[in-house]
């Protein structure tokens, strides 16, 4: 679990490429730490003091009703939304510090959106190579090879020259995942990535995520797919009205939720036949 190559974990003295001592921190390198994050839109508080930690290779699922703040939390971590207060650390480095370079931070955090947000005026290949070329300064060839490798791995090799409008929703979302992966992020944020898909296309996207989890990708996943969360999550967090009301191993949250609100929420999910 605690292979912490490249970690700049809090309390470790290891260099950027050194092996951190296994006993540092709580025994695992912290890939992400969120401290007391508050966020309001106008007079509406959306996040009311979120604390969250992810170790490397953690797959944490955020569950909760619509409007509970899952998407906002992801957008805050990615710095797409400025925080009202609180701090976010990526591998020990405070990314919410005023001196932090937003663009450098975002290279290391991939995000996949509910609505895909592919660039409609670019081919699949161009969608995937844009950021590696323009942000990482890779050559077109180098970025192209990386992109083709990834597309191939996720069964999209024959779609490389197509434009997004020629793809199914599931294919578009897989391209969006590949686009994020092409930056080789340290952390991947997934924002209800199957919510806009037809039911028969959900599995192909979730299987991609399962494979990424097996490969050790650190992920924070906002999802309504409870079965998926139960399978894949090392930890499940239940968000309610802008706070993490309860968190723990998936088996625990789903079978023995402690909080009344969690029980209610899961009850409704079960009644809807989604668990």
């Amino acid at each position: 679990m605690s292979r912490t190559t490249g970690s700049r974990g809090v309390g470790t003295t290891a260099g950027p490429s050194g092996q951190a001592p296994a006993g540092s921190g709580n025994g695992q390198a912290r890939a992400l730490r969120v401290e007391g994050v508050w966020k309001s839109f106008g007079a509406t508080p959306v996040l009311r003091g979120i604390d969250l930690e992810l170790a490397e290779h953690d797959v944490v699922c955020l569950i909760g009703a619509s409007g509970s703040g899952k998407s906002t939390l992801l957008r805050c971590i990615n710095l797409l939304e400025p925080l009202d207060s609180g701090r976010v650390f990526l591998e020990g480095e405070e990314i919410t510090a005023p001196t932090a370079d937003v663009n450098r931070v975002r290279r290391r955090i991939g995000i996949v959106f509910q609505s895909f947000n592919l660039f409609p005026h670019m081919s699949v290949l161009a969608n995937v190579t844009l950021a590696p070329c323009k942000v990482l300064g890779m050559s077109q060839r180098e970025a192209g090879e990386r992109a083709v490798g990834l597309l191939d791995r996720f069964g999209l090799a024959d779609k490389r020259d197509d434009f997004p409008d020629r793809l199914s929703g599931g294919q578009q979302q897989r391209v969006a995942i590949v686009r994020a992966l092409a930056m080789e992020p340290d952390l991947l944020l997934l924002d209800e990535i199957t919510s806009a898909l037809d039911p028969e296309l959900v599995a192909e996207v979730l299987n991609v995520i399962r494979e990424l989890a097996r490969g050790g990708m650190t992920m924070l996943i906002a999802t309504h797919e409870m079965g998926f969360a139960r399978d894949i999550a090392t930890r499940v967090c239940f968000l309610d009205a802008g706070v993490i009301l309860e968190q723990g191993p998936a088996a625990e949250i789903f079978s023995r939720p402690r909080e009344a609100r969690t029980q209610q929420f899961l009850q409704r999910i079960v009644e809807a036949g989604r668990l």
Partner: protein
Amino acid sequence: MSGSLAGGPLGSGDLLSLRASGPPRSGRRYDRSAFRSTLVAFGSTIVFFGLIGWVVVHAPNWPEVQRSFLDGAVWAQSVPDIVPAFLVNVQLFCIAEVLILVLALVLAVLRSLPGPVLFPLRLLATVYADVFRAVPGVLIIYLLGFGIPGLQIAGIPTDPFVYAVIALTLVYSAYVSEVYRAGIQSVHPSQEAAARSLGLTQFQALRYVVLPQAVRRVIPPLLNDFIGLQKDTVLVSYIGVIEIFRQSQIDQQAAFNYTPYLVTALVFLVITIPLARLVDVMIARDRRRFLAGTR
């Protein structure tokens, strides 16, 4: 049901009822009614324009108007004058259009910049757009065309063509920048969010993601403004550029006949109509992709 409606002289009721009533029709039946409606459209067009033509030709003073506007001899005389003069207009609108597309894009981008620090730039661009859309173009042409050379600064150009290009560029850039701006705003914020989330800078997101989509969407209105520019090149005749309109005035005064104006009008028709059709084709071609891509 629909059969009884089909027989009328303006049988479009047949098409309507075809859509409204239940059972599917055979192809042949549909072909027949489509053929009929084409025929009807053709007929009504002839009747409509025939009627207008009849009214004009039977107007009390038609023979006089015919002599003044449709004189064959004057026509033959003025065409060799007027068509080459149009080349001046072509030069005008080609040079101005390139400058307009660049200047307007800069203005639109300036107005789209976020943040309080850049407020002066936004203000500048906004004031520019307001001023040059408020003042009639012909006044700008006058003020520049007579005012600047009137300063008699050593070394500044005296050729009115130069001021014509500058004046048209200034006026049209104000309009075109608004078109660009509308295009930029029509690109959904999630596109920029996606670009920024990949680590692209604000400028890169604009350059590679927002602007290409924005510009493609506004090509039809841009071409509309281009058509407007082509026509407004005649305004520079006021500051002494001998272009198509000035030339037709000269010919009109020489012949005491208005036929040269008709020639000029036809020249503009010939150049503008293909452009208008091109706009339609482009809209149809791009529509599908951009509807699909930006859900």
